[in-house]
Each structure stands twice: as structure tokens, then as C-alpha cells.
């Protein structure tokens, strides 16, 4: 496994190519994965990328300036008059992606927004423990029509479920979560529309920092989500009262 400094050296090579718009597709994926693994709070990543984007932009000053055509400003203003402004951060899934640095940071910012802070770039192994991994979560967030179901925060514990209406794949993301007692686990439940029987959607445990990044398997059309504390391995039906409940718009 690469050490952090080695990763930043690798990131610098990728960031340079990105700043020069010379990144190959495979390297683009490597860059996104590295950035996701380090998270948006990594000051070194931000510094490296900003530095090289500034340097690349300075290269523009070496060109011969060209006067725009006589009606260029009017043409632009006419187009602007016909173009409504989008004042929120662009969704990372949109095809008219913002460029390089801003694009990647938009993805990271979107994930931060979704999980309410904390590092990104965690996937989950079979034990339900969150481990540093690649950009599976950011890939999910990048898909169209991702919704957020928020459980009311309790004692600083925040849990959200990311899902796409009508589809079963989702993510459980949380911060500030206490460890469940003993060897117990948290279990997410989803209630399908038109039924009264909860379906198990996945067990999870926070990492040492209280963060949760866990894939979930939801019912196709859900109306309610709940979390309970269950014995190791989870349960087919809740065995304890839910500690969190929220309604969901399918």
C-alpha cells in the first residue's frame, strides 16, 4: 500500500496532466480515486491541484491576444438573456461537466453535503466495517436522480441513506455514530409501499471515527426507513425498537 507522501507524489503527476488537459482516461480514474480516498479535507491534495492549475492558467498569458469579433459581446449577452442561471453547485452527473479541478471538487462537495461532513472515499467489506477504498460512493452520487433520506440527528449521530427511487442499491452514510453495544450491529430496514413488514437492508458499524459508509440493499419502492440495534450478523426482522425512523419519498 502506498504511503501518504507517495500518494501525493503520484497525485502531483496526475494533477499536472489534469491541469494541462492531458490526462488519459485511465489516469483520470486514478486521480478521481486518489482524491476520493484522501477526501475533500486533504489540504495537500488541494494545494497541489490549485498550484498546478494556477501555473497552467499562467501559460495562457504567453499567447497572442486576439480581439473578439465586433459583435461578440452582444452575442454573448443575447445568449445569456436566453439562459437561466443555476445558482447551486452543479450536480456531478451532469454531462456539461465543469472543468477538472472544479469538477472533482464539485463531486467531493456534493458528497460532503450528502453525508453532512467527514471524509469521503470509503467502501465496505463483507464484515460491514468501513474501510478506506476507492470512489464507489462518489460513483454512486454521480448517478442521476440520487435522493437523500435523512434520519433525525440524535446526540450528534447523523445517518442518511442515499438511494435512487425505484432502484434497490443505496448507501448508508453517517457521522458521529457510537459503537453499538457488545458485538451488536446496526441494521437498516426498509418498508416497501403497501406493506407493513420491514425488510432488512443491510447491517453496519461505524469506524473508529464514528463514520459509516456502507452499501445498502433497499426494497424497490420504500415508504419508511428505520435503524435498530441487532445481534451480530443482523436479523431477518427487527428484534428491538427502532432507534431512528424516517419517511421516504419514493
Amino acid at each position: 500500500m502506498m504511503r501518504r507522501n507517495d500518494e501525493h507524489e503520484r497525485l502531483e503527476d496526475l494533477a499536472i496532466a489534469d491541469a494541462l488537459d492531458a490526462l488519459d482516461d485511465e489516469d483520470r480514474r486514478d486521480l478521481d480515486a486518489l482524491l476520493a480516498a484522501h477526501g475533500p479535507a486533504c489540504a495537500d491534495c488541494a494545494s497541489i491541484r490549485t498550484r498546478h492549475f494556477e501555473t497552467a492558467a499562467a501559460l495562457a498569458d504567453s499567447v497572442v491576444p486576439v480581439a473578439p469579433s465586433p459583435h461578440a459581446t452582444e452575442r454573448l449577452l443575447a445568449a445569456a438573456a436566453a439562459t437561466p442561471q443555476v445558482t447551486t453547485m452543479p450536480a456531478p452527473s451532469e454531462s456539461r461537466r465543469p472543468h477538472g479541478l472544479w469538477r472533482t471538487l464539485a463531486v467531493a462537495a456534493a458528497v460532503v453535503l450528502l453525508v453532512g461532513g467527514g471524509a469521503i472515499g470509503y467502501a465496505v467489506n463483507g464484515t460491514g466495517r468501513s474501510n478506506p477504498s476507492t470512489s464507489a460512493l462518489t460513483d454512486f452520487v454521480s448517478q442521476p436522480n440520487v435522493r437523500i433520506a435523512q434520519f433525525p440527528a440524535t446526540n450528534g449521530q447523523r445517518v442518511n441513506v442515499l438511494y435512487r427511487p425505484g432502484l434497490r442499491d443505496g448507501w448508508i452514510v453517517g457521522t458521529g455514530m457510537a459503537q453499538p453495544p457488545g458485538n451488536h450491529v446496526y441494521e437498516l430496514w426498509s418498508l416497501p409501499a403497501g406493506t407493513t413488514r420491514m425488510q432488512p437492508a443491510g447491517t453496519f458499524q461505524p469506524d473508529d471515527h464514528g463514520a459509516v459508509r456502507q452499501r445498502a440493499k433497499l426494497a424497490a419502492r420504500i415508504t419508511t426507513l428505520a435503524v435498530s440495534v441487532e445481534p451480530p450478523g443482523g436479523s431477518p426482522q427487527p428484534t428491538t425498537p427502532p432507534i431512528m425512523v424516517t419517511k421516504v419519498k419514493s
Partner: protein
Amino acid sequence: MVIELDSARDQALIRRIRAGERAALAELFERYAPIALGLARRVTGDAGLAEDVVQEAFLAVWERPATYRSDLGTVRTYLFSVVHHRAVDRVRRESAHRRRLEREATLDTAAPRGVEDEVADALDSRQQHEQIQAALGGIPEEQRRIIEMMYFRGMPQSKVADELGVPLGTVKSRARLAMRKLHEALGGGDRA
């Protein structure tokens, strides 16, 4: 100091654009369009295409002004990044690259020109222009050529390696050395 004032003025323009003021967009355009157009034309090798690229880039700034974040760099950096990115996209999509290379091949037989030879009156950006020219002149030819191919010809690293007949790792290491030297020569990030 001049650059700082320019940067503050740009930030104010972006705030006004966010508020929906088209006059601010016009001001930003008139301020940066000449260099943006020069950059787009240099990359695409096509005057009409360059005009389109610059129009699209500024319209994107209007449409999504929240995309720019001041903590990530100057407005100038952002604008030129957007313009460059769109120019490279167009080059790769529309085969303008091939047309430009053919034209370059003709020019090359007469008088090879390096990046530093593209001397110009840089309007109100003369200071930056002179600075970057000096910086480019201060790096070895083999590194400058890599930057030229990647930034101004819109070539991905792998293609640069193929064209030069050198390993991809060599391209990356030369680009790294060049960009570090340029950064230092430009004041180590104090340009904003």
C-alpha cells in the same frame, strides 16, 4: 499589487454575475476575451472554432456561477481553465487537431517557433505575459516541448509519448519538472 486589485475586481464581477447582472458578464468578457480567444485559437488553430469556444466558456460562467470558488484559485485561472478545457475538447472532437498539425508542418519548414517566440502586446496583462515568457525561456527545451504539446496542442500524455518516441514515464517526469520550475519562476503561487 496590481494583480491583487485585478483579482478583487474579478471577484466582485463574479458576485454580480451570481446576482444576475449581465453587465458584469460583459465586463468580464471584455476584460479576458482577448487572451481567452488567443488561447482558444492557439489550441484549436481555427478562428471560428475559437470564437465558439470562448462564447461557450463565458456562457457557462453565466449559467453556473456557483461553479467558481474563490478558495480554489483566481477567477482568471478558472476562466482560462474552462476555455482551455473546452478548446481541447473541441480539438479532439472535431479533428481540428489534424488540420492544425498540417498547417504547423508547413510553417515548421520555414521557421520553427517555440512557445517563447509567441511575443505579443499583452494588453493590460503585459506583466504576466513577460513573466511567463521569461519562465518558459528558463526551462530546458525538452521540457518546454512537452508543455507545448500537452497544453497548446491538446495532446494527452500517451500521445505525446508516442509522438516523441519516449516512455510515458519520461513524459510525466519532464512535465513535472517543467511545471515545478514554472511555478517557482512565477513566484511560487503569489500571483493570485
